[in-house]
């Protein structure tokens, strides 16, 4: 059986409504957070979990990590049911919420780690070996004596990640780990996650809105919308379905004389630059290029697919999310 096995997972929440005028009882609204979600993940996989806000991503992560009990469905992680054997289950997993800290605010991070060692019953030598390894990979060596409150957001994220991995979990959940980080820190964090996955064969499940994260880290991606699984497979395949537009940017040495272009191509001129948009299927460079050359002397020509965020937006739109 697969390492993570999820079948027919359902979960609803009751949301209490505002009391209506003249009524004594507050009404309830039933929100179906997950409807019949099934998937399997093998050990050592790096899976991206995406979907618009409120799609049920966090609910899934909470069920898989044993914080929530589902209404229906079977879930096993490494043969255990998360919510039935909470303590045994959490011993083997690590969870990082991008917006929730578990380290202590006013003490040096090394002291926080010492306390985590106590909480997780990590043996001395395993702890020191792991801490040295993580501190090096996350470049934390010089920060260990600094209180958490004096660290920048990026440093804090690295410290959090280190804290969540001290007990060498075999499964790591990351909930928007790169939120609010600068480009350099983001790249470093991605490198680190790949390293952890490669070195320790750690299974990683990542939820994010940053498509670059997914593109850089995950070969497999699951799309969740309104509590249902809409896609499960390769990211490249998903993108190719929605990758239907090309953007051509042509820069001339002076203002171009706008050429007569075939109908499906739309053009916008802006000083020396001409911007063309067309469907991939209609793109016929052979006819287009001579027309563009008639308009003036071309200095630069760029053909681009649409930005990955646009593709995802198009996908959400098509799926009616």
């Amino acid at each position: 059986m697969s390492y993570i096995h999820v079948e027919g997972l359902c979960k609803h929440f009751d949301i209490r409504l505002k009391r209506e005028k003249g009524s004594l009882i507050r009404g309830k609204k039933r929100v179906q957070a997950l409807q019949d979600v099934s998937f399997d993940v093998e050990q050592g996989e790096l899976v991206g979990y995406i979907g618009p806000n409120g799609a049920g991503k966090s609910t899934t992560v909470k069920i898989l990590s044993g914080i929530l009990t589902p209404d229906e469905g079977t879930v096993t992680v490494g043969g255990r049911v998360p919510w039935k054997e909470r303590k045994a289950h959490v011993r083997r997993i690590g969870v990082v919420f991008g917006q929730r800290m578990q380290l202590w605010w006013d003490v040096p991070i090394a002291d926080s780690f010492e306390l985590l060692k106590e909480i997780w019953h990590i043996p001395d030598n395993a702890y020191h070996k792991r801490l040295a390894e993580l501190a090096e990979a996350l470049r934390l060596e010089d920060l260990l004596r600094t209180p958490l409150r004096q660290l920048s957001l990026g440093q804090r994220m690295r410290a959090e990640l280190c804290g969540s991995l001290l007990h060498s979990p075999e499964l790591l959940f990351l909930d928007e780990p790169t939120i609010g980080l600068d480009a350099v820190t983001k790249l470093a964090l991605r490198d680190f996650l790949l390293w952890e996955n490669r070195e320790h064969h750690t299974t990683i499940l990542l939820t994010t809105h940053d498509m670059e994260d997914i593109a850089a880290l995950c070969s497999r991606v699951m799309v969740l919308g309104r509590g249902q699984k809409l896609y499960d497979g390769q990211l490249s395949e998903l993108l190719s379905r929605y990758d239907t537009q090309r953007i051509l940017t042509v820069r001339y040495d002076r203002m171009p004389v706008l050429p007569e272009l075939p109908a499906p191509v739309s053009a916008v001129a802006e000083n020396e630059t001409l911007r063309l948009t067309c469907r991939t299927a209609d793109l016929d460079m052979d006819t287009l290029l001579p027309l563009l050359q008639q308009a003036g002397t071309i200095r630069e020509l760029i053909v681009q697919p649409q930005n990955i965020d646009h593709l995802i937006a198009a996908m959400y739109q098509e799926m009616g999310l």
Partner: protein
Amino acid sequence: MQTIRLYGKSMAMLIRSQLQYPASFLMQTLAQLVMEGGEMLAVILLVQRFDHLNQWTAGNLYFFFGLMAVSFYITECFGRGITGAFPSMVRTGQLDTLLLRPRGVLTQVLCSAVDPRRITCIAVGIVSLVLGSRLSAIRWSFPKILLLLESIFCSFWLILGLFMIEAVLCIYSVKSVELANTLTYGGRSACQYPVDTYPRTLRILFTVVAPFALVMHIPASHILDKPLFAWPAWTAFVTPLAGFVLFGVMYLLFTSAMQHYRSAGN
């Protein structure tokens, strides 16, 4: 044993982190002294005016007041996780972080906060106990010392249990803090005087529902050699155990509330 080790380490770290702001710590500690000193002043003024309450002399009343102050503030100091921090842990979702660690939730909640500023309140309580003991001319013996310690120890669990009512309610997201306060802070204010000064309904409340009378007043009255009831002396060692019973009941309710939390979540 490991739990106690974890608790010790957590406390050491929390106290260190509070001492990161020494000026604020000092001022708040002094503010506590003024607050609890004022409470004691109320008792002093009372006994100056009336010099006794039923059969209780001024010294006796200081003793009762001291017993309550010491017990209550020890609880607020070491049980801070439950008495103060818990509702916001539920609201902010910090409780989830605790569920992701291989330790009991209540253990971790208690390990997550301490309030060392209460040390001055405890000190006021000790002064009052000593004063009460002198004025009442208590003849201390080994069983009496043991009885006093047992009473304080059991009171800790009793008061912690009462504070857990609020914790349980806030898991169900019921905002009825005031109701819970009647028993905790109300109980403290009322039961710093012996229970026999109150009308029957309050006596029942503080014996059966929030058994301050069983945990504090009966052993204290035996220490003062003025037993509340004409029961044999050994019963004074038994009645404080009511504190454990109340804590046990609240612990079970807390556990089932956590089950509810995990099926409802946030």
